[in-house]
């Protein structure tokens, strides 16, 4: 449905997007994930038509759209700061694209009613954006983006301006809406939890390039590079070597890994456990209470490993503990 073929974009000396190739399948929820300045928003803006690529092709529905302005692309878009029209009511905002299309007023009213029902805003038609909460404003923005019945929905960090509780609530609704409408969705975020929860596939970006493209499970469990391993989820990268199927540091560790040569063993906190007779011995240096669990930091021979424990049986700071390793763990290599 959306294809980017060797797309490049630079601003003066800065290369924002550096030869990106992507393909979104019809009905897919696709996320561009990465830190600030990695090129994810520029990529989205290239699809929207706010920026023109210096090289490469952008295709929507098989059609090359490089030269098409945003108003002629079959897209809907939700912005980080909602971008509602402050001079229009909720009704006016959602009706805006429909009125531009020249639909009769009766049809406009019917469609706006359906859309507001879909985003649970019935009864607020007459309010102005400043009279709404952040979450309600974002729902209006979503309804407006859907009003044109676009082929592709673009979302630019739509939840990042909201507080945690509303963010989680809206995340669920976004997923439900996308499932219901079956709309191809391109989502931009720097929040890895959001990306993992929502996406069918994720492209992790770094310095204008796609570092890893895969399903949330692949990205989390088999990260392609140390950057992806460190950016997605929590974990510690232990430098060492893969040899004959085992990880070697100063000695062979009882952890099966794929590949050969130097690289990093990724140890996630939920995969480590406190265990009498565990392979590693270390000292507890920090315990952080996170509600449903306690995250322990244990210093082991110059490394600080993180271990998640259920709250209750937490060793004291400075206590010597032994850590059991997972039988198998991701092994990532430096090259991209």
């Amino acid at each position: 449905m959306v294809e980017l073929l060797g797309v490049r974009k630079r601003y003066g000396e800065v290369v924002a997007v550096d030869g990106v190739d992507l393909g979104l399948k019809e009905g897919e929820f696709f996320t561009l994930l990465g830190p600030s300045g990695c090129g994810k928003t520029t990529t989205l803006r290239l699809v929207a038509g706010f920026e023109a690529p210096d090289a490469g092709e952008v295709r929507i529905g098989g059609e090359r759209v490089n030269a098409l302005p945003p108003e002629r692309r079959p897209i809907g878009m939700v912005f980080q700061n909602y971008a509602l029209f402050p001079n229009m009511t909720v009704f006016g905002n959602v009706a805006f694209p429909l009125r531009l299309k020249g639909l009769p007023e009766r049809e406009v009213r019917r469609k706006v009613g359906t859309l507001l029902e879909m985003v649970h805003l019935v009864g607020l038609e007459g309010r102005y954006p400043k009279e709404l909460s952040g979450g309600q404003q974002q729902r209006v923005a979503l309804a407006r983006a859907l009003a044109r019945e676009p082929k592709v929905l673009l979302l630019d960090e739509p939840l990042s301006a909201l507080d945690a509780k509303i963010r989680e609530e809206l995340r669920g609704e976004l997923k439900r809406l996308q499932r219901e409408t079956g709309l191809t969705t391109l989502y931009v975020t720097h929040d890895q939890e959001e990306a993992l929860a929502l996406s069918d596939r994720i492209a992790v970006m770094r310095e204008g390039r796609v570092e890893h493209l895969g399903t949330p499970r692949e990205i989390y469990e088999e990260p392609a590079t140390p950057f992806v391993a460190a950016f997605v989820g929590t974990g510690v990268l232990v430098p060492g070597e893969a040899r004959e199927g085992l990880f070697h540091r100063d000695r062979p560790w009882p952890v099966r890994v794929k590949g050969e040569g130097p690289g990093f063993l990724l140890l996630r906190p939920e995969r480590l456990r406190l265990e009498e007779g565990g392979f590693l011995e270390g000292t507890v240096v920090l315990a952080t209470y996170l509600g449903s669990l306690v995250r322990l930091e244990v210093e082991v021979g110059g490394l600080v490993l993180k271990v998640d424990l259920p709250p209750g049986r937490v060793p004291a700071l400075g206590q010597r503990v032994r850590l059991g390793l997972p039988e198998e763990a991701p092994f990532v290599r430096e090259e991209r």
Partner: protein
Amino acid sequence: MGQRGVGWLLALPGLAVLGGVVGLPLLYALFLSLTGYSFLRPSYDWVGPARYQEAFRDPYFLHALGLTALYVAVTVGLTLVLALVLAVLLQQNLPWKGFHYFVVSLPMLIAPVGVGLIWKMILHPELGILSYLFGKVDFFGDARYALFSLALVDVWQQVSFAALVLLAGLRSLPKEPLEAAYVDGATPWQAFLRVTLPLLRPVLVVLLILQTLAEVRTYDLVYVLTRGGPGSATDLVSYYIYRKAFLGLDLSGASAMGYLLLLLTLALVAAYYRLLTRG
């Protein structure tokens, strides 16, 4: 001393100066307007509201008020429209941007009397370049053209300030609503009319207030270019009040008219303010 007390103490010098240079003359003019004071009969005989009643019966004053209303409508309207066009053009990525800014700012940098003299030469019926190019037209000497010629000179000077204010306003607008309008299918013209202009409304209203106040007080251009003539074709109210005070020597009558003008202007500003705060 509490925080409030310190605040008043710090504001006191400024308030004293303001009271001295604005408050006292205003009070003195109010007092004069209730007396029969003139330069020929300098006595403060109390006459109450009689000078105000006379002003309402003065056909020349009423003519000047009507003329000023027309003048303000034409100059403010034209200034805002032209300034908006210029601001939108300046906002585009045109080459030689600095040069364009300089040219647009120029009229603002010239004193009104200077502007008057420059245009007096340009529009001179015998020596002016316009008469040379388009045939002899007595721009300021013919009652049919005088007011509009005066208005055009005024607009030429005012438009640069207004354009720069609007440009600053355009630059400060959030980008996203405009982009959202494009994604929603709006053409640039539709997006300008339905998104940019409404977002720009606070700036436009402030500019409307400033321009109206400036145009109501127009005096210098009239003095330099027409002296209110031919006949009373350009006898704007500020110039008429000046004449009443310093040529007619009727200081109390001029003060009463000045106060009436002040009240009218305040009413206009209040109406604009309602426009600004509505919605």
